[in-house]
């Protein structure tokens, strides 16, 4: 290997495979990060193809496996995938809504080598939680979370934060303690996918956010060594964007239910990029050579102000999907950056949220995730 090739291989070494096994899901979360047109992407990969994906990903350097979706428990071959991941010594995290889990199946997955179970709940109580999930599932989720602990599996609790539940950070932490969660993710909504459709109803105010962040910080200190607490700030309230996915096509490799090799869970919503499928070409070839993946690697594509900004090696210019879905151009500076020419879009959204927050809660109309197109074809 030449020095330049070796350097490139290290720069673009994936550590995590995000395997989106299916977009199907019994829930209808109003913040779901799946593409709004997810129904266009059928489950097209059979078990053998997924097993090959795991092997190829490990050979590329992957050491972490996220089994997610949609709802990964809907795949009947989860057992086979977990067993292969164990053989490959991957750290395997099942990211699930908990529906439809059984205690027996979880025990089986544990015995096959599953390392961690992440369960998402929408709030600390029904019916508020169920209103966000669009199904009466809260009590069942609780039962599943208890099974996970009873079975001796590490439990991550994930709660997506938004205007309706953000004031309950204290209760969420107490709730996670009761369940003996090993890790609590208080993850503010990322406003893409269905969450962007519902942004008006979900985006919190700056004060709400500051209070919750302080609560989480205090609890993190108190629970050190017992429960890890992660608080993810929404990028609408930080003046510089995050390094989305640690940089496009660098550390995360995502395979969609229909086999596309992507840098993140929404890249296939960007126009004009020809994504390749693991059914057509070996994963390693796609990872290194795919024209779509290479589009936003490096700095060639960057516009000003990123091109001459010191932070370009830190945040890589932010999120390409956010740029596209807000400005119409995937190559624009992420508008959450205060230096971005389109930052006014973010300020307008914040103002809209502040105004909407003054309305009574009943006034918030929510659009539930559905396989039907949002707009009839023209």
């Amino acid at each position, binding site marked *: 290997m030449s020095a330049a090739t070796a350097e490139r291989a290290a720069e673009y070494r994936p550590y995590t495979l995000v395997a989106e096994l299916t977009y199907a899901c019994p829930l209808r979360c109003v913040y779901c990060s799946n593409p709004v047109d997810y129904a266009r992407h059928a489950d097209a990969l059979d078990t053998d193809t997924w097993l090959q994906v795991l092997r190829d990903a490990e050979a590329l*350097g992957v*050491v972490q496996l996220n089994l997610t979706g949609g709802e990964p428990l809907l795949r009947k071959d989860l057992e086979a995938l977990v067993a292969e991941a164990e053989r490959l010594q991957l750290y395997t995290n099942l990211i699930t809504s908990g529906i439809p889990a059984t205690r027996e199946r979880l025990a089986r997955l544990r015995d096959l080598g599953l390392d961690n179970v992440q369960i998402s709940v929408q709030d600390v109580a029904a019916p508020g939680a169920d209103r966000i999930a669009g199904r009466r599932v809260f009590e069942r989720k609780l039962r599943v979370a208890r099974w996970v602990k009873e079975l001796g599996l590490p439990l991550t609790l994930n709660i997506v934060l938004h205007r309706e539940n953000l004031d309950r950070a204290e209760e969420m932490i107490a709730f996670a303690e009761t369940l003996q969660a*090993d890790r609590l993710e208080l993850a503010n909504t990322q406003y893409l996918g269905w969450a962007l459709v519902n942004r008006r109803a979900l985006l919190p105010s700056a004060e709400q956010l500051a209070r919750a962040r302080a609560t989480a910080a205090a609890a993190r200190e108190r629970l050190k060594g017992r429960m890890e607490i992660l608080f993810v700030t929404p990028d609408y309230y930080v003046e510089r964007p995050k390094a989305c996915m640690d940089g496009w096509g660098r550390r995360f490799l995502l395979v969609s239910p229909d086999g596309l090799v992507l840098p993140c869970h929404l890249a296939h919503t960007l126009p004009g990029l020809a994504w390749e499928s693991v059914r057509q070409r070996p994963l390693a070839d796609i990872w290194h050579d795919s024209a779509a993946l290479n589009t936003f690697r490096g700095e060639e594509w960057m516009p000003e102000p990123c091109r001459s900004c010191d932070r370009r090696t830190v945040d890589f210019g932010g999120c390409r999907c956010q740029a596209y879905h807000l400005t119409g151009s995937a190559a624009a500076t992420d508008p959450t950056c205060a230096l971005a020419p389109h930052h006014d879009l973010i300020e307008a959204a914040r103002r809209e949220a502040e105004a909407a927050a003054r309305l009574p809660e009943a006034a918030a109309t929510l659009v539930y995730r559905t396989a039907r197109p949002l707009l009839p074809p023209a």
Partner: protein
Amino acid sequence: MSHDARPRLAPKARLRLDQKTNRYLLLYPEKGMQLNPTAADIVQLCTGEHTVEEIVSRLAEKYAPQPREVVEREVLSFLDALSERALVRTDP
């Protein structure tokens, strides 16, 4: 961490060799830590069988002629850091 504690890797953590770098990686939810050779030796001894004292002795032997105090300091600070992140446990 006290000298007679018997640290053991938490169930949420997993140690593996990184084929790309030949270094050990300590993996846990959403994260990984690349370990230097001493750190990897320490983690490999976190089985719940050995006391901190014993771990220090073993490594002092292995890394001789490094002074025992230096090894001890390194072992203790690394174990404390791991325990703060709940990656090792000392409860029975």
